[in-house]
């Protein structure tokens, strides 16, 4: 690989943008494909699309010889709005599942390092902290406070930034009222998962945490290419 291609790949990685590197194993120029590039007419299009979707690197056989596809996807992140009981269980579960996890809650009584050891914690309002975090299509957001003053901005912001998963705690009735308050297109609002989490009959905060991470993983692994 030449230095320019390596530098271009590293620039995509640093900016949290997806890229796929196509390397002919027998030698020859290495090709960088950026997320969003048009793959129509590319003989390797389906395999490259699969690499973007799955995040898996793989060796493929082609008419031009063996190629290695390096899938470079940003590490997935999970933003939790609310330093609540569910978040206390969800933060370590998400870390084990490979997510960089951030907790945001302006209520300093909840957002304490004692309750969230080893977790990135912002004891600030979502409108103050989220724009600086750079939410993107590799970020999931779960709003867990039940408090519209804290959750609402975070939800619309996550939809605007194209987060791959947006979920909100609350009953169907609560969510119906929420939809009346939020200003976004009906299509965007329909992306909010509420009630939050995979339906496994979860009751305790820890069980709800498991159902939420299951939904987040499903959204990550089944997202469109």
């Amino acid at each position, binding site marked *: 690989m030449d*230095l320019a291609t390596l530098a271009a790949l590293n620039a995509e990685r640093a900016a949290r943008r997806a890229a796929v590197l196509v*390397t002919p*194993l027998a030698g020859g120029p290495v090709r960088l494909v950026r997320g969003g590039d048009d793959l129509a007419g590319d003989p390797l299009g389906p395999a490259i699309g699969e690499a973007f979707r*799955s*995040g898996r690197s*793989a*060796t493929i056989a082609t008419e031009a010889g063996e190629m290695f596809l390096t899938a470079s996807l940003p*590490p*997935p992140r999970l933003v939790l709005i609310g330093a609540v009981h569910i978040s206390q269980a969800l933060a370590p579960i998400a870390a084990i599942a*490979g997510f960089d996890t951030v907790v945001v809650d302006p209520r300093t009584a909840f957002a304490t390092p004692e309750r969230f050891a080893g977790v990135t914690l912002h004891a600030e309002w979502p409108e103050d902290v989220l724009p600086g975090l750079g939410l993107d299509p590799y970020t999931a957001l779960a709003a867990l406070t039940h408090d519209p003053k804290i959750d609402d901005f975070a939800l619309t912001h996550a939809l605007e930034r194209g987060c791959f998963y947006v979920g909100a705690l609350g009953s169907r009735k609560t969510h119906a009222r929420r939809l009346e308050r939020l200003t976004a297109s009906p299509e965007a609002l329909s992306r909010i998962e509420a009630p939050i989490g995979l339906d496994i009959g979860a009751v305790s905060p820890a069980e709800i945490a498991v159902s939420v991470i299951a939904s987040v993983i499903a959204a990550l692994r089944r997202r469109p290419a």
Partner: protein
Amino acid sequence: MTETGTVNSAVPASGVDVLALAESWRREGRGVALATVIETWGSAPRPVGSHLVIDADGNFEGSVSGGCVEGAVVAEAAEVIADGAPRVLEFGVADETAWRVGLSCGGRIRVHVAPVA
């Protein structure tokens, strides 16, 4: 069965960003080779897509096998840097009993070693 790489295997557990290091070593003018796990069978210690970066003096960072074959890859990388031609190396276990005693390097891996020019 071929195992597959993780979402972000460029950053190993050590926290060193191997691809960023490869770029900065090359910019310093060092001869650099990048080794990549391109295929695995069985209980390979590092997933497909894992990297090892090597310079012309034999300095290296990253991992393609958790320590089992790094020495051989580093030696081969010196030749890759010298002649500029990429190579595919294959490492395996000749002795079937290795599976039963659970050696961490059981299984087989293919490693691509190419210069950063």
